[in-house]
């Protein structure tokens, strides 16, 4: 385990970057953002990075991921080739408005960094929104994240530069799903920290698909924060597909802040990645909120996927469901830690948490910790966790019908994973994910883009 002294050194390096090179890059930043920078770097300094002594990070030494000397991406990457030549989303019928974030920065081949859609929604680069819509950004940016005492979140906030900004005005509906493609592509090892801000006003609706990809074989570290605000009656569905290579370390922190009668679904599908940690923080701030959080990870070799979910039932009459499933093969490791917090006056809360894992080998490891913390007395809550192997009786039954061992295992694994996939309502994506998950379970390549670089295979230090 990485020790305190080493964490101190890592923190000092970030501080030096913050007051040095970074300060000069962001010299022209508005005052409100500079305040965020200053508060956040101070907070980061006092919290530092989590190591295994932190209960929530017991099975994944986050600080250790930072010991490699990544170059910090604080300026946009200059791309010499046309990115469309090497990356093309392979969900052909996926009719979306697509946005590319390259190494943490909005990538716009035509220089157009922000758009207003016919619905009135504003979609584009966060850095451009800071210039074009400063009041809007100031009103929301960091408002969820600043309450967090996560070192990773403070670190991201101290270096906010770019990412995706979505603003959907009152009663507007996004015409099509928005697709955000986070790409990592660099010949060196780099660290990037994008920041997304989605604001859905009263009665608005929309679907957002987020794809995380790595396009070159270098080692990458991503520490991202997404803040999602759902005002009264807003309806949002977010599907995140993580598909990075074995040398990537991906840390995501997602905040969902819900107001009265809002309804948010978030589905995180981790198909591939070296080390992945997803933190999800949901605040149900008023009555009648519904939140459904789903997760699926298909993990093999020595990959590790950790999911942490915190649901705060602050007010009465809200409903939340968490269902996370994992299939672990080879020596893969997984962890799930969930906590449902029900405040003293949050009566009539309904909250259900479940984590199910299928272990395909004796060497795969899963740690699961579903937790309930209830201070109200009239609630319906449950939590549960299972880990197990494929059902031998079901396998024999299938074989007795002529289905071979491999195919029978596939059917069972797929059935297990399908429950999560079936929650996706974005039609062609649902089909495609079905397909991808099947390929992934069959051990075939699961890259969901026509990427020419086979950075997925033959990695050293994977």
């Amino acid at each position, binding site marked *: 385990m990485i020790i305190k002294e080493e964490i101190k050194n890592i923190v000092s390096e970030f501080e030096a970057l913050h007051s040095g090179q970074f300060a000069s890059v962001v010299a022209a930043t508005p005052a409100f953002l500079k305040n965020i920078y200053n508060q956040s770097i101070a907070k980061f300094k006092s919290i530092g990075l989590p190591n295994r002594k932190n209960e929530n990070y017991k099975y994944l030494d986050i600080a250790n991921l930072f010991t490699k000397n990544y170059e910090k991406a604080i300026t946009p990457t200059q791309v010499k080739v046309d990115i469309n030549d090497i990356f093309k989303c392979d969900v052909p019928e996926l009719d979306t408005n697509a946005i590319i974030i390259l190494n943490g920065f909005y990538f716009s081949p035509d220089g157009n960094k922000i758009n207003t859609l016919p619905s009135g929604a504003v979609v584009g680069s966060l850095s451009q929104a800071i210039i074009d819509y400063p009041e809007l950004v100031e009103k929301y940016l960091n408002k969820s994240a600043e309450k967090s005492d996560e070192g990773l979140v403070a670190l991201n906030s101290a270096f906010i530069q770019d990412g995706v900004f979505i603003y959907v005005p009152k009663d507007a509906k996004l015409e099509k799903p928005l697709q955000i493609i986070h790409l990592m592509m660099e010949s060196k090892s780099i660290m990037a920290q994008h920041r997304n801000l989605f604001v859905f006003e009263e009665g608005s609706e929309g679907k957002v698909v987020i794809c995380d990809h790595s396009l070159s074989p270098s080692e990458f570290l991503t520490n991202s924060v997404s803040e999602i605000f759902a005002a009264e009656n807003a309806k949002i569905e977010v599907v995140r597909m993580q598909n990075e290579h074995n040398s990537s370390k991906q840390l995501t922190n997602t905040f969902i802040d819900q107001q009265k009668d809002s309804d948010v679904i978030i589905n995180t599908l981790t198909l591939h990645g070296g080390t992945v940690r997803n933190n999800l923080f949901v605040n149900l701030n008023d009555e009648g909120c519904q939140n459904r959080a789903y997760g699926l990870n298909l993990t093999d070799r020595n990959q590790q996927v950790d999911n942490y979910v915190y649901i705060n039932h602050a007010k009465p009459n809200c409903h939340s469901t968490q269902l996370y499933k994992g299939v672990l093969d080879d020596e893969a490791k997984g962890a799930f830690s969930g906590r449902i917090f029900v405040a003293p006056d949050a009566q009539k809360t309904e909250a259900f948490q479940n984590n199910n894992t299928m272990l395909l080998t004796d060497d795969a490891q899963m740690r699961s910790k579903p937790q309930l913390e209830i201070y109200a007395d009239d609630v319906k809550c449950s939590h549960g966790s299972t880990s197990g192997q494929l*059902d031998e*009786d*079901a396998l*024999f*039954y*299938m*074989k*007795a*019908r*002529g*289905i*071979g*061992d491999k*195919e*029978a295992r596939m*059917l*069972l694994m*797929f*059935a*297990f994973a*399908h*429950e999560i996939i079936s929650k996706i309502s974005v039609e062609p994506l649902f089909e495609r994910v079905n397909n991808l998950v099947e390929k992934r379970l069959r051990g075939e390549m699961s890259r969901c883009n026509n990427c020419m670089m086979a950075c997925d295979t033959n990695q050293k230090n994977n």
Partner: protein
Amino acid sequence: MLKIENLHASINGKEILKGVNLEINPGEVHAIMGPNGAGKSTLSSIIAGKEIYEVTAGKITFDGINLLELAPEERACAGVFMGFQYPIEIPGVSMVNFMRTAVNEHRKYRGQEPLLAADFLKLMRDKKALVEIDSKLTNRSVNEGFSGGEKKKNEIFQMAMLEPKLAVLDETDSGLDIDALRIVANGVNKLKTKDNATIVITHYQRLLDYIVPDFVHVLYQGKIVKTAGKELALELEDKGYDWIKKQFD
């Protein structure tokens, strides 16, 4: 078609079958009866290829090939069907997907192309009608939430879909009411041809009112101790197994 010679088998070191001999020819229906613990289910499990049993002596040939050398899925594709006493529920795997995979694995084994979707669905429809199974059942996950009777009907439906040469029905009548019993038996009778054969394993004579056997065998203490025509079943119903037991204990 099927020839079992001097079959000995054990589980966890305990010998269950102690020299079974049985020969089945195309077009025949055989009933195997016997008291609890005689080894009836062990015999059917061994024919299907369940690995928990160890065959310690003897052999089973099916159409001239050594059945014991085949994996369970190869036996199924070669034409051996096992109707389970307790069919397994498989949540999340739809009946359609399950049957399509099974049918196509059989076709692959015979060197045929997979069925086109439309042809497959037509086959499903035809067989559903044949065995009188409700469409609602085939739209669900395999056996999930099925009643005991529905599970057994589903076994016969699968048998109709896969058209085996030899069907081994392990206590298909257990847990069935009289209507379900009739439907299951009708299904088996409709599927009977001069080229296939059926082994019906049962405790009671009742099923044999509907599926009329050519031979009735009594399995006791791991051996077939008596073989006769269908009248033997009636005699057993009348006298009980004690009559047999007395002769061999």
